[in-house]
């Protein structure tokens, strides 16, 4: 699948704004079509989702029964499982962006991107979100099927779904900024894998993927409240199992604020990094 972006540019007459209106959405659309070819590959990769949801079902069932609990900080067993599934789909849906950027920086192929008629960061954002969106849809369908089969009930808030979709899209944008920043540190570090692994585990814990943040001791809840990670996972997952409009509004404002701050950081890292770039040979 190939689209001639130059001809798209030629047809457009909206001056300097045309890349934002035509070019980048075209990049996203093209990548979306490319990814649709691999949809069965994503289904195959969802086996991990099946395994991890099964493990956490067993873990929470054993925990609830051995402690004789009916709810945990306001979450019933079903809600906790639906929460976990939704949080897991967000985390499992992101492409390996930091690995890609890391490789492009180390191999020098980032230099080719600099000569192309697009902004490297925005181009990667379009590719990232389109791929993440497909993966998320596949994961969500499979995840809902698994949790429904296990719990026999739908413990989520369908009335808020359209607004939750916006939360998920903002979560993907936030995740893009974080992963892009990690990938761009390859301009200074020899290998960014260790940084990614640590980020990933922080997302699991302080982002609220493994446990809803309400379960943590107050000191950890305070620590999580200073970080953007909870708006990547906890925010959308919390809204999914218990939607209310005011919470959605507060989460959305915080997500936009963090995207603005981290987007600025990514732009700064990119500018500084490109200045450090040395390209040898052809």
């Amino acid at each position, binding site marked *: 699948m190939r689209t001639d972006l130059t001809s798209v540019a030629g047809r457009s007459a909206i001056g300097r704004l045309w890349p934002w209106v035509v070019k980048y959405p075209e990049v996203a659309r093209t990548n979306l079509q490319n990814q649709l070819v691999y949809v069965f590959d994503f289904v195959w990769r969802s086996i991990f989702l099946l395994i991890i949801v099964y493990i956490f079902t067993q873990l929470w069932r054993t925990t609830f029964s051995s402690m004789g609990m009916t709810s945990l900080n306001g979450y019933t067993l079903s809600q906790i499982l639906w929460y976990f599934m939704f949080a897991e789909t967000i985390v499992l849906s992101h492409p390996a962006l930091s690995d890609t950027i890391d490789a492009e920086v180390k191999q020098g192929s980032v230099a080719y991107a600099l000569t192309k008629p697009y902004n490297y960061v925005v181009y990667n954002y379009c590719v990232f979100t389109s791929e993440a969106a497909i993966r998320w849809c596949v994961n969500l369908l499979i995840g809902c099927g698994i949790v429904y089969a296990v719990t026999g009930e739908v413990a989520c808030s369908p009335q808020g779904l359209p607004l939750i979709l916006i939360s998920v899209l903002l979560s993907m944008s936030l995740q893009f900024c974080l992963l892009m920043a990690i990938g761009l540190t390859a301009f200074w570090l020899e290998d960014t894998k*260790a940084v990614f692994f*640590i980020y990933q585990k922080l997302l699991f814990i302080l982002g609220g993927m493994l446990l809803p943040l309400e379960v943590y001791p107050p000191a950890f809840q305070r620590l999580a409240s200073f970080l953007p990670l909870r708006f990547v996972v906890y925010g959308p997952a919390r809204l999914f199992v218990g939607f209310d409009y005011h919470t959605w509004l507060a989460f959305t404002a915080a997500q936009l604020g963090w995207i603005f701050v981290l987007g600025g950081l990514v732009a700064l890292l990119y500018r500084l990094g490109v200045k450090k770039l040395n390209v040898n040979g052809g």
Partner: protein
Amino acid sequence: MLTVAKNLGLMTSYFRANLGMAMEYRVSFITQVLGMALNNSLWALFWWLFFQNFPSIGGWQYADLLVLYAVVTIGFGTAMSLMGNCNRISRIIAEGHLDYYLALPENVLIHVLVSRMDIYSVGDIVFGIAVYIISGSVSWFNTLLLLAASLLTAAIFVLFAVAAHSLTFYLGNAETLASQLFNALITFAMYPTSIFRGLARVLLFTVLPAGLIGLVPTELIRGHHLQLLAFLAAAVLAMGIIAVSLFYRGLRRYESGNLISIRL
């Protein structure tokens, strides 16, 4: 006996060479090792937070989980440090790189396995030793048991990977399938085995031997049931026979792709 000594010599030589290469970039090596140890520490933190709310899960307490993590991470780290190619066998077969190993007068399987070292896994070993120390189970006898259990666990990791990746000889490139199986093995091994019951428990001691990696060594160190060590050794022997047979029977089906490759 001579063959065992020869293979041990090959393993030692490769380990020295791989470690030497990794140490060439000393700062990167130390960063990666510490990064992996920190990464694992965050798992230990998650479980600490979990056990703050629920002191016992199916009879398991936090200290038991630390012992489990010690065995699994030291075992995994040892496996990947000594035989880091075990998870790349599918690619080596599919891309025709096996030709290189077939042309040399060494044991093909052992040579494939030892010719690569995963640097990050040294961080797993460092982490495993640290959690063993803070688990409160430290004694001379327990340390010996931990050492024996970790070596057997390492053997299970390698043999399972060999068996899974050998499917490439029979099914075509089975890299994704083998990776999924290996990831499933690690994932199941990192949770208290007591939460799994019925058919799942049977599967965890047979098809996907996560119970052998997680529950058996932990029970061995917790309860000093030495018969479990014998059971683990027998299981490793059985897995060894299956994995090695799968590899060498599959090797008969291998066809060279006439690929010219250079190893640097």
